[in-house]
């Protein structure tokens, strides 16, 4: 397996690789001119030439408030949005859509199997049954006003069973441990604006590598309604000057790439603060019916809906294009699977359903598609109280005009046709093909240049 040649961070060592921007660009030494027409700035060149891969979000310079407003205006518009929801840890496909009447399933899952009748039969393949905690997804499936495409066994050839490697493959949109930009990051590099970090936003504590770009700004925050910099004992004119200076410190050039990263993040933070100023903190519209239980996922989905529904002073929606967030809980159920999986899936599925209603009530659902995915499924044979890492898993695409149906079929659990030599579920669809469909059919851009070496067959999503 190829090893990265000029890339060194602790995270990279740990995970095999993690998405980051700046790598993958031509090497230019400090002092050399920047190649014309690359769209690259001095800063990204310095980062690259130092041989350090950094999660730098774009290479923009700090703008004056006037120029910033102009940039936002340029980027404003009714963009199509993808909300990517990640079920972290490897969600068990054979519980989510369970082949409850398959004798092999009963044998493989003597204690963990979902019992027939516990949930609703999956209309597109009667061998499968929705987990009772997935009822939020089932309701969306049954709703004629929204389409749900379901991949019952999605993955890739030669499945990797490391969380971190497999997740990386999905994040970068390639089975390449050294790839450095996210698949959504490359999309934003093509269509985004240099200085509009809100175009790619992780509603999480940190930026998702899916959004790692080479040239344009992206951002992360869970705090979209109060992202304002204030300090004790500072107010009025001094506060305005302090905030301006905070942004200016992000625009100072730095010789070393680490400080440059710190500066770029600071510049983006100052911009994001301005960009989010119009997003309020109100309650979701009546009728969204979020579940009563308060979870971080619910809070972040509600914030996402507010963000997508918000308008700026000119009455335009904000220039958001890609949003990422983590689903409720963790799905790495080596132990105690029955309880943990059920609780986390319930919170995830019921909140996704409410989020969709929220978008509909705000009148923005026709601009939004949701992708739900996990880095792999779990081993069909249980280990007693849980399951170990497996191969093919589930993915869901949800949207107003999404063509309801299957992405690939459920392969069954027979050795050879359904399970591979290691006893793991075989993939019947490829995540890269799914990404290509989303790019081509939703974002209406060529997948070439964004998803390398994807299979030529594409699921029809719209």
């Amino acid at each position, binding site marked *: *397996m190829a*090893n*990265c040649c000029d*890339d*060194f*961070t602790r*995270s990279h*060592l*740990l*995970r*095999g690789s*993690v998405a*980051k921007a700046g790598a993958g660009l031509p090497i230019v030494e400090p002092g050399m001119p920047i190649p014309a027409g690359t769209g690259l700035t001095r800063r990204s060149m310095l980062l690259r030439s130092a041989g350090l891969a*950094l*999660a730098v979000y774009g290479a923009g310079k700090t703008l004056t408030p006037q120029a910033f407003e102009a940039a936002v205006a340029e980027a404003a518009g009714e963009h199509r949005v993808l909300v990517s929801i990640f079920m972290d840890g490897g969600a068990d496909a054979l519980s989510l859509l369970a082949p409850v009447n398959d004798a092999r399933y009963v044998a493989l899952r003597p204690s963990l199997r979902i019992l027939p009748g516990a949930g609703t039969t999956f209309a597109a393949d009667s061998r499968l049954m929705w987990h009772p905690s997935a009822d939020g997804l089932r309701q969306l499936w049954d709703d004629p006003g929204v389409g749900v495409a379901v991949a019952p066994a999605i993955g890739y050839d030669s499945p990797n*069973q*490391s*969380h*971190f*490697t497999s997740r990386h493959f999905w994040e970068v949109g390639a089975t390449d441990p050294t790839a450095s930009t996210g698949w959504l990051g490359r999309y934003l590099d093509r269509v985004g604006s240099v200085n509009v970090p809100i175009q790619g936003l*992780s509603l999480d*504590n*940190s*930026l998702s590598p899916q959004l790692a770009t080479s040239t344009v700004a992206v*951002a992360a*925050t*869970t705090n979209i309604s109060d992202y304002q910099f*204030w*300090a*004790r*004992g*500072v107010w009025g004119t*001094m*506060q305005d000057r*302090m905030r301006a*200076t*905070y942004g*200016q*410190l992000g625009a*100072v*050039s*730095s010789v*070393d790439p*680490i*400080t440059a*990263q*710190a500066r770029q*993040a*600071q510049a*983006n*933070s100052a911009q994001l603060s301005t960009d989010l100023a119009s997003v309020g903190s109100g309650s979701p519209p009546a009728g969204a019916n979020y579940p009563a239980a308060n979870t971080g996922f619910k809070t972040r989905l509600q914030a996402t809906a507010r963000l997508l529904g918000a308008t700026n002073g000119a009455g335009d929606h904000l220039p958001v294009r890609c949003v990422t967030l983590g689903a409720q809980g*963790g799905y790495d159920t*080596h*132990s105690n699977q029955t309880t943990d999986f059920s609780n986390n899936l319930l919170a995830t599925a019921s909140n996704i359903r409410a989020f969709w209603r929220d978008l509909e009530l705000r009148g923005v659902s026709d601009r939004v598609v949701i992708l739900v995915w996990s880095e792999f499924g779990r081993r069909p044979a249980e*280990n*007693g*109280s849980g399951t*170990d*890492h497996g191969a093919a898993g589930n993915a869901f695409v949800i949207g107003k005009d999404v063509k309801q149906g299957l992405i690939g079929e459920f392969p069954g659990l027979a050795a050879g046709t359904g399970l591979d030599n*290691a006893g793991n579920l075989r993939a019947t669809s490829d995540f890269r093909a799914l990404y290509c469909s989303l790019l081509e059919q939703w974002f209406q851009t060529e997948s070439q240049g964004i998803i390398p070496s994807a299979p030529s067959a594409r699921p029809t999503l719209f």
Partner: protein
Amino acid sequence: VASPKPKRKVVKKKKKVVCKRVRIKGTKRYRKVCKPVKKAKKKVPKKQPVTTPVTPPPVSGSPTPTPSPAAPPVTTPPDPGNLPPPPVEPPPPPEDPLLYKGAFGVAQAQRLLWRAGFGPKPGEADALAAMGLQAAVRSLTRPVGAATLVGAPVTLPNGTPFAPNDAWGHDHLWWLDRMVRSNQPLVERLTLIFHDWFATSNSGVDSHEMMIAQNELIRSHVLGSFTDLVHDLTIDHAMLLWLSGIDNRRNAINENYGRELMELFTLGADRGAYTETDVRELARALSGWRADWQDPDGFVNFRFDSNRFDSATKSLWAGTAYARSGNFNWSDACSLVLENPYHRSFFVLKLWSYFIPSPPNAATQAALESLYVDSGRSIAAVVEAILMHPDLYLGAPLVKPPAVYNAGLLRATGQTIASEAWVWLGDMSGQMLFYPPNVSGWNDRAWLDTSTLYGRWSLANQALSPGERTSAHYSGSTETGTAALATAIAYIGSPALSPGTLAVLQAFADQPIPAGESQASWRALRQNALRILVATAPDFQVC
């Protein structure tokens, strides 16, 4: 029925450490304290690196060797037509390329204290600089006796009792307090490093007591042998819960710990060090540990149960020159992964990456691997060499982990823990202690993004609040912008700031007072603003 801890059976290299069991205060638990035997130090090659016999592929992400900035210059052959006169003096001894030979002043001492600890308290960098590089490093790597916590212990407002074993977040405060007050900062920093390396989260353990016991276990080994650390952590109670060790039993083999032991703790993924078959075989060797659930205490009575142990033959590294097969148990499993030829390079590169953000050159990598192996897997020996390496002083700065940034701000401003806010502020800035996001530890790429930077700003705001200036502090005085900036920088501990940063701050400080503002009030606002701008300046997020 509990069986005794199985003896380690795998052939080991001659131990070059002495260990004794020491009872952990107030518990029935023992911990092992190991010290390198003195003669082992003779083996420590400070000079030329020894060529390693086995050279596995580099750790994933490891770079092509680049010339070290401190590498001796290549000598140009003299022009034969213009031969220099024969040397009058004998040639100097060959330079040790692993030893930093440049100036060791306050700036270098500050960097050392930020990398090997939690930044300087006032005066500490000067004192360290006066010692010179080697004595300064050894004062950190070879502490004498037990650590002392200097200054006021945790005191919470409104009489809130401090309850690290029980109250939410007080585990974070308990450790942050040690980071602020310990007189052995490297021990705390290495404990943080190995907390990240063997990342265990209380989200899966649900016991402050077990998490703190694991923390003490790590602390007792950080200057000892990695062999002991791996063995003891494998059967640490928090770890047995976190990675399903107590669920791993004969006929219900659970791969969780076995996979991460190799992927994240000792060998590294995607470099050919092990196969999926090895994951399954190693998991079988690790089987047999159990515990009992007891209301309301949770899991108790952790023990090895031979009835749960898969006693059939396991085969590891099949098809390689170092293939092994036998009735291995958990202890053998630990020894076997450490003897895997891919381990040494993984260990060295991973440990290095916690201190230096650029890769070691090939000679350094090889020398550190030899040092590691020859010292009996001594962590301290390798750390000491890294802390004296030219790359630490001449290379790019390192991002301060949020907990280090937090402790450093408190140390610089002479504070100890007097608020529970540090818990959620730590979370906001990306590092809630005892809650790493997953088994691979914190993602240090996430420590400088728009989300975590907002956390750092909020954290600095809290750290600066006790010193908040009001107009009363400035009544009747005058102060130039230059003087105001100097005061603010000194208040944060006089960090080195770049000319570009200083120019922006100077321009800010020099802005005229708006009409109608009082001089004293304006100066207080300006000083408060300058302090947080310095404390959050990009230059101060790195070291």
